[in-house]
């Protein structure tokens, strides 16, 4: 069991290592100039040599991402609860919810910046906007998946409202909410970067625009790498939390 899990953790690195190797191979074989397509080694060097400066930008992006993510979790679950309250509320909320996803991010993001300024708040809101939908929809589907027979059974045991939430609604919806969180986790960093890209003075997106304007492709690549790592970390964080919170799903996966 332990050996199996050890190998599973290892596979992530093998997969990423293969991509790095492929990347290196392309730059080595085609002898692409560094200013067009830097090799992995050049990119890593760019990150390391500029670590202090990049780090300050990264810190801001992390703050924006986590705050927006948290806001989306709160809003998404709240909306799901409202939709689950009645048929009427569902029919009133669901259509605008879906429509909100039809608004192109590239159109709404500059507006949010105009409304809320170039500071952190606007970026937090953009992240929340991007993450909100998958969380709300998955949480709502989770509520709907509650087995009415189990509700009856709890009633036969004499359960009250608090018991119903504790023993039925929360555990039944948790896998759905966590699945939504996983999708949202990968969107969230992206949302923050897009917001920064459009305007502001701090954040990875800002760092990227500056790198691009000064033709420092190596730094741009470095920033992209950092963004990917951040997304991966957040994803693994949510994944780890979901394994801990829903152990019954975990064992099902491994059967």
């Amino acid at each position, binding site marked *: 069991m332990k050996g199996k899990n050890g190998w599973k953790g290892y596979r992530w690195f093998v997969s990423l290592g293969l991509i790095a190797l492929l990347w290196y191979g392309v730059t080595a074989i085609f002898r692409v100039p560094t200013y067009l397509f830097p090799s992995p080694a050049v990119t890593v060097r760019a990150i390391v040599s500029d670590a202090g400066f990049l780090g300050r930008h990264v810190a801001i992006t992390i703050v924006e991402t986590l705050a927006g993510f948290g806001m989306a979790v709160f809003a998404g679950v709240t909306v799901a609860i409202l939709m689950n309250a009645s048929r009427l509320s569902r029919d009133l909320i669901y259509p605008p919810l879906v429509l909100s996803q039809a608004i192109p991010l590239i159109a709404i993001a500059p507006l949010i910046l105009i409304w809320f300024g170039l500071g952190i708040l606007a970026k937090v809101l953009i992240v929340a906007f991007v993450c909100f939908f998958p969380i709300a929809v998955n949480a709502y589907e989770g509520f709907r998946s509650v*087995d009415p*027979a*189990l509700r*009856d*059974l*709890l*009633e*036969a*045991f*004499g*359960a009250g409202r608090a*018991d119903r939430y504790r*023993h*039925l609604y929360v*555990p*039944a919806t*948790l896998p759905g909410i966590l699945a939504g969180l996983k999708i949202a986790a990968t969107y969230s960093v992206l949302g923050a970067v897009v917001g920064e890209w459009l305007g502001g003075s701090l954040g990875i997106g800002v760092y990227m625009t500056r790198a691009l304007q000064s033709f420092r492709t190596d730094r741009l690549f470095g920033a992209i790498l950092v963004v990917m790592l951040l997304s991966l970390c957040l994803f693994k964080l949510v994944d780890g939390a979901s394994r801990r919170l*829903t*152990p*019954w799903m975990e*064992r*099902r996966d491994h*059967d």
Partner: protein
Amino acid sequence: MRPLLEVDRLSKSYGDLPVLRDVAFHVDEGESLAILGPSGCGKSTLLRILLGLEGYDAGEVRGPVDRAGYLPQDALLFPWKTVVQNAELPLQIRGVDRKRRREEVASRLPSFGLAGFEDAYPHELSGGMRQRAGLLRAVVSGAAVLVLDEPFGALDTLTRHRLQDWLSGLMSELHRTMLFVTHDLEEAVVLADRVLVLSGRPAGVIGERGISLSREERSDRLSPLFYREKDGLLSMIRKGDER
């Protein structure tokens, strides 16, 4: 013996569709009563009424229905709870402290064949084990009457026979009042002291038959004694169909 549960002229319809008509019976304390009837005749509705999950149009139900230990058709264990957590749930809801709940469950695990599976989740158990865990939950709840809805109907024949024999043995140790519905003649003969035969929709009581076999005789499904009981029930059902 005094009746623990009494049902008097109970009727119920869904809209224009009558489901139960003038159903009347009683369950004595310590007795095991089978309610035998064809599939879809309204047996489950009857149980839901007895459990207080559904209302009825006319008649009366007297008894400790709020203290029934209920085993639904397909165990209905909570998928996110382990065997122990499932079994202790009714006690937990009633506010029994954790230590006493755990003791109560642990002491019964071996006789339910679940020792070693305390921390298993329902999907890790076989169908028979799930059903036993569901019954453990019903028994642990300390209920005055055990209410079983086609307890082993979803299982394969071999497992079903094994579990019926096991439950028959268990009941003789527990001395609990039991009420179960079934469409399986053998199940009724193996597990019941008395069998109530229901007609098809709308369900009404056709007849009643006491089963006075010893435990050993009940487990021998091929013996003439067993056959006579089965045959008696079958002819009662046929007579009901002709009416």
